[in-house]
């Protein structure tokens, strides 16, 4: 119980600080590496929440595939690797106010609604087999729709990005 709270604190600190550095750093490759730290920390938090398959998928899809796509995007668009291009626009104070208001209102309403409600850790633990049972029975139609969506996105990306 205490160990879980300690690990949550460490992971949450890693995730929050890396996310803040990601949106404030001036080097775009550093931003991509901070995003890796955020995604890895979230994967560890999924393990803490007994969602092992989501954690595995997070590592495979996000840290594996999506990050490679981002690094390719950074390379192909020849983004300046140093501090050449000013990465943050002039409107950043307004953006900070909007984000702070949004986060403040959300956190206030969460504390107001859920207060100190404890996480239901005595409930059933769903392993990968249970998740796949659910995906291939209750959610079979959305699953097939997602596969068609991925095919459409693949073809769309090829059509958009190929050189004519």
């Amino acid at each position, binding site marked *: 119980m205490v160990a879980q709270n300690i690990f949550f604190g460490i992971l949450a600190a890693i995730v929050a600080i890396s996310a803040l550095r990601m*949106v404030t750093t001036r080097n775009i490759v550093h931003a991509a590496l901070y995003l890796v730290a955020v995604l890895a920390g979230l994967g560890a938090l999924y393990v803490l929440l007994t969602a092992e398959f989501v954690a595995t998928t997070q590592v495979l899809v996000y840290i594996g595939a999506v990050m490679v796509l981002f690094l390719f995007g950074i390379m192909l668009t020849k983004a300046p690797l140093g501090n050449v291009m000013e990465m943050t626009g002039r409107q950043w104070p307004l953006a900070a106010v909007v984000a702070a208001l949004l986060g403040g209102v959300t956190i206030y309403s969460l504390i107001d609604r859920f207060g100190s409600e404890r*996480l239901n850790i005595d409930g059933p633990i*769903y392993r990968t087999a249970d998740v796949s049972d659910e995906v291939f029975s209750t959610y079979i139609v959305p699953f097939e729709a997602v596969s068609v969506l991925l095919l459409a996105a693949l073809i*769309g990306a090829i059509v958009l990005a190929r050189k004519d």
Partner: protein
Amino acid sequence: MLLNQFLILGAVLFATGVYGVLARRNGVMVLMSIELMLNAVNINLVAFGVQHGVVSGQVFALFVIAVAAAEVGVGLAIVLLLYRNRTSIDVEDFDLMRG
């Protein structure tokens, strides 16, 4: 552990992502900040799934991950096309719609 620990972390991540989308000028950075917002949703889904003792939370988190992968693919293709046509991915250069 409290339920609110995870929900507040999700809220902080989401607000950070909103700041990134609004303040950043590089098109690739805007897409990365969108990923941050999608991940904030995922942690809420998994936490509520545990809270209510149902597996649907994990299933929906998986769907969100799949949709996010598709979104990144198409988004980066669009950014690449913008770069090829305008030799810039600074979102402030794309103001054709301004009156």
